[in-house]
C-alpha cells in the first residue's frame, strides 16, 4: 500500500514518519500525478484555509475531491478533519473543503492557542488503554449523519469519527509518538476498503 501525505502545507514529515512506523510506503504528494499514484491519502495538520486555497491554485482540488468521493481511503488530522467535513462552521468566507465525511465541524472550537491542550482519551478501537491526544486550536465535530461512527469524544464533543473509507481526528497523533491512530487507519479503514475494490 502506498500512502500519500498532502504536502501543500502543514506537518507533513510527522505523518510520513508515523506511516513508516506502521510499515507502509509513505510519500509527500503535491502534484496531480503524485496524487494519482497513491492508494490512500493523509491530510495533515496545518492551516485549513491555506491548504484548501493552495489545492485550488495548483489545480488539484477537484482531483482530491473526486478521488475521495470515489472511495479512496483518507485520514485527516485537525486541519485535515476540517478539509474532510461536508460542512464547516466558523469558516473563512468562501472556504472550501474536499468533503467525504458527512459531518459538520466547528473550526477552532476548543479555542485559541492558549486553550490548546493534551489529554488522555479513550479511542474505540477495541483497546481500553487511554491514548495521549494533542489538541492544537482544535476543531470538534458538531453533527454527524448515520454513515458516520464516533470513535472518541472530549467533554461530549466528538473528536474522532469514521465512515467506511474516511477517518478524521481533531487531535494530532503524529505529534505524540504513538502510531495507534495511523495503524487503525491502515488496518481498519484503508486495507479493508482497498481489498473490497480488488
Amino acid at each position, binding site marked *: 500500500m502506498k500512502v500519500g501525505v498532502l504536502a501543500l502545507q502543514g506537518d507533513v514529515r510527522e505523518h510520513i514518519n508515523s506511516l513508516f512506523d506502521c510499515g507502509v510506503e509513505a510519500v509527500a504528494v503535491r502534484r496531480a500525478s503524485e496524487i494519482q499514484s497513491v492508494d490512500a491519502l493523509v491530510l495533515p495538520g*496545518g492551516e485549513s484555509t491555506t491548504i484548501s486555497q493552495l489545492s485550488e*491554485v495548483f489545480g488539484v482540488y477537484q482531483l482530491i475531491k473526486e478521488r475521495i468521493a470515489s472511495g479512496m481511503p483518507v485520514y485527516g488530522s485537525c486541519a485535515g478533519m476540517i478539509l474532510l467535513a461536508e460542512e464547516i462552521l466558523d469558516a473563512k468566507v468562501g472556504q472550501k473543503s474536499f468533503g467525504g465525511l458527512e459531518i459538520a465541524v466547528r*473550526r*477552532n472550537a476548543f479555542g485559541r492557542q492558549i486553550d490548546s491542550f493534551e489529554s488522555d482519551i479513550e479511542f474505540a478501537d477495541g483497546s481500553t488503554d487511554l491514548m495521549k491526544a494533542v489538541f492544537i*486550536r482544535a476543531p470538534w465535530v458538531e453533527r454527524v449523519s448515520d454513515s458516520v461512527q464516533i470513535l472518541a469524544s*472530549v467533554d461530549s464533543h466528538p473528536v474522532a469519527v469514521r465512515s467506511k473509507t474516511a477517518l478524521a481526528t481533531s487531535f494530532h497523533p503524529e505529534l505524540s509518538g504513538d502510531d495507534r491512530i495511523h495503524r487503525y487507519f491502515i488496518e481498519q479503514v484503508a486495507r479493508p476498503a482497498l481489498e473490497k475494490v480488488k
Partner: protein
Amino acid sequence: MAEVTGTGRVKRGMAEMLKGGVIMDVVNAEQAKIAEDAGAVAVMALERVPADIRAQGGVARMSDPDMIEKIQAAVSIPVMAKARIGHFVEARVLESLGVDYIDESEVLTPADYENHIDKFDFTVPFVCGATNLGEALRRINEGAAMIRSKGEAGTGDVSNAMQHMRKIGGEIRRLSSLREDELYVAAKELQAPYDLVKEVAQTGKLPVVLFTAGGIATPADAALMMSMGADGVFIGSGIFKSGNPAQRAAACVKATTFWDDPKVIADASRGLGEAMVGINVADLPAPHRLAERGW
C-alpha cells in the same frame, strides 16, 4: 481525563502546524484579511512594519490591544504579536488578549539588555530570533517553542537572512560530525546548554521549528530560504511596502510551497509590480542594525 494546557508539546506543536507556510506582518484588519485571502498561515499584528520603524525611528513597543483585537476579529487564522525583548509585562498583556504566539522581537526596542523573558512561565508559546546556533539554543533553553533566523528586518535585503540560515545550518552540521566527548567543548564554545547541544548533535536539527525572517521581499527570496532548510517564512515589510500586496502575498505563498520548482517560482514572479525599494544592509550604520539586538 485531565486537560493540560501550555505543555511543551502543545507549544512546539503549534509551530509544526505552520510549517511550509508564510506568516505576514500586518498593521490593521484590512491587511490581515488580504494576508488570509492570500493563503498566509498566520499574521503578525504590529503597529508599524519594520521598514517604517526604521524610517521613523524612536522607541518601538507592543501594539495597541484594540488594534490586535480588531485583527483577531477579522481573521480565522492564528494571530501573533510582538513584545519587546525582556518585557515580560507586554508579554502578559498579549497573553491575556489571547494571541496565538508571541514574538519576543529585536524589531522592537529591547526593554532589557541582559535578560530575555522566562518563556516557560507562560501558557502562550514564544518565537524568538537567532543569528547563530548558540543564540537559538539559549532561547530554547528559556522556553522558546519556535525559532526564526533574524535577518535584517525592514530592509528588503535578504543577505543577512541567508547568512544566519547558513550559520545555523553549518553549526548544526558541524555538531553532527563531532565525537561525543567533543560536545562538552562545543557547548562551551556555543555558550549553550550541553543537553541541547547533545540533542542537536544526535538529531541533526533544532528541537523546534525553524522559520526564517528579515529582508524577504520576493517569491524567489522565500524559495531561497526554504532551500536553505527553513520550515517556513516570515515576511514583514516585503508585502505591504510593495506595489501590489495581495498579488505579491499570494505569489510568496505559492513559491514557499513549491520552493524546489523553478517553473512555479517563475510563474509566481510574473507581473508583480514594484517590490519594496529596500536598503542594502551594508549601507546601514551598525547601531541601526536590528539583528545585533539580543544575545
